């Protein structure tokens, strides 16, 4: 599903070149739930941005769903983001002046999906995250947990092949965090491939596999303590 080989990302100034990722390789198979952990500044977010085609790498190759996406142009990357990737952000990233329905609708609009199909799909995903009664509410009228569930519904609406979650429970209290995590596990159980960046070892332990990143490199990979590892980390 996701295969990065010897990937690098550097930022160059006039005097120094800083590597955010260096010789970074990872292989996530279809249906896996992988947690990427590491200290602040280790390169987790850069990895996630590149995995989500929000940034480009400066070296190495990146294959997504069997297609080399390292050298694609901006339009093609936008299409892939829209069609194959679902994002779940720590800060939920809902558009404050759009209601729940319209927020979930955003990625479907860019897919030019017919109105009736969009309506059906939005109804289904909001039903799934338990928010079909809140369709006309605005983000400010929802709790943090509910906002994150809207964000998950938005990520699921386009039936993506890959869900990328960046600290999905980072802004939630423990009760809401558990509920959101449960939802992600349910989604994974239904066959979704999930890559989750987190600081939280407890959350990481609920993934199938952990990938530890330090100084822009994968330094350790292993089976999560509570789940059976079913995939090899490196391709």
């Amino acid at each position: 599903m996701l295969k990065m080989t010897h990937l690098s990302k550097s930022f160059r100034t006039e005097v120094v070149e800083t590597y955010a990722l260096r010789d970074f390789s990872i292989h996530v198979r279809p249906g896996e739930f992988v947690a990427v952990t590491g200290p602040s500044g280790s390169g987790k977010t850069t990895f996630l941005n590149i995995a989500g085609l929000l940034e480009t790498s400066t070296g190495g190759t990146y294959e997504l769903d069997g297609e080399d996406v390292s050298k694609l142009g901006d339009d093609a990357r936008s299409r892939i983001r829209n069609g194959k990737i679902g994002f779940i952000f720590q800060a939920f990233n809902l558009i404050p002046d759009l209601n729940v329905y319209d927020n979930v609708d955003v990625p479907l609009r860019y897919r030019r999906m017919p109105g009736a199909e969009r309506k059906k799909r939005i109804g289904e995903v909001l039903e799934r995250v338990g928010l079909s009664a809140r369709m006309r509410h605005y983000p400010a009228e929802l709790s943090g947990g509910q906002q994150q569930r809207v964000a998950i519904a938005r990520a699921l609406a386009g039936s993506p092949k890959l869900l990328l979650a960046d600290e999905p429970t980072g802004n939630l209290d423990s009760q809401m965090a558990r509920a959101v995590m449960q939802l992600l596990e349910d989604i994974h159980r239904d066959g979704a491939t999930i890559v989750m960046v987190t600081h939280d070892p407890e959350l990481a332990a609920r993934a199938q596999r952990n990938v530890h990143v330090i100084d822009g490199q994968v330094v350790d990979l292993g089976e999560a303590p509570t789940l059976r590892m079913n995939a090899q980390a490196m391709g």
Partner: protein
Amino acid sequence: MFAYYVQLGWRGLRQGPGLTALMVLAIAVGIGASMTTLTVMHLLSGDPLPGRSAHLFYAQVDSDPSPHRADRAPLDMLDYRSAVDLWSAHRAERQALIVNSTVKVRASDAGRSAEMAPMLSTTASFFAMFDVPFRYGGAWQTEDDTDRARVAVISSALNQRLFGGVNSVGRIVRLRDADVRIVGVLAPWRPSPLFYDVRAGRFSQGDTADFYRAPEDVYTPFETGIEINDGNFLPFTCWASQPSPGHLQSAPCVWVGLWVELANDVQVARYRQFLDDYAKQQQSLGRFVYTGTRLQTLMQWLDFNHVVPSDVRLQSWLAFAFLAVCLCNTIGLLLAKFLRRSGEFGLRRALGASRRAVFAQCLVESAAIGLLGGIGGWLLTLAGLWLIRRQPAAYADLAHLDAGMLVFTFVLALLTSLLAGLLPALRASRVAPAMQLKAL
């Protein structure tokens, strides 16, 4: 997608209503100022006879023998003999001689006192050549020109003043000391400019507002007018002293205009040749020293005379400069507005919007601001024209917004806002999604 962008555009307007109101105001004021002056420009520089003006020509020969003129070219009018010679030759499909004067006029069978009224002495074809509309009766006959018939056509306004607006055909009106019979009453008619009377505009240093005055009140056959109102014809230019001042027929002066109607290029070429031949013939007879001639279409003649007043041109430039300032302000405000929403644009990009989609969304929002600005600009234009109609300018009463200019108001507002939106939309479309996601 366009419907989605429109929906987002209207929603975007409601975000930061203060900024939106400022932008709408900036565009409205800029559009209002420029459309007010542009409307006046449009009214003053338009073709007064669309479809016909290309066939109407103003004829000139150089009868002035003065050797000292640096710009050796025919004067703007003809001397009496040349004018009558050219007209009598009947070398054009239609032709009209014109001279202007002011005459004392009163209805001989009404009790009201006399008034001074502008009079045009011309020939019968004048009315057909220039599409002059009649309310009652019609033009005099061509024989009336040669017979010096005591007949007249009067304007709608004079008919209202003298006869209360009723059909006055057949009534008698007294011009100076002569009674003439009314054969026609014009319908309201307001050519802009009063093109057949345009002369010497290029010497007026831009003060050409008088070319936009209302048409004359009284029209008489050419010779009839000269007989009745001799000594009162203006304007004239002389190159020697007049033997009997005021009597211009035999004076070394130009004071008559000649308009001819020519249907096609062949007729135009023939008429040019005719003018040249006439000038050479007059030179050989010793009456002309120079043989220069000129034949210009109506629009060429108006351009040649710089009919649009220079202050109107200046105001137009100033208004457009003001619009440019408003445009720059709007660019700045749009930049601020879109910058504030970088987080949203970054998120949209992350969720699959292409740069083009974000660019289009921002441009549609700019266009929505332009449309609102257009409505404000339209209202300000109406107010501006209302103010102009209260100015003591000869063209003041012409200042109205026609359908074409109304449409142009909104087109200009739309173009202005799209132009203003280009740079901010481009910047919005180029936000780095990864950088902006934390800004939402």
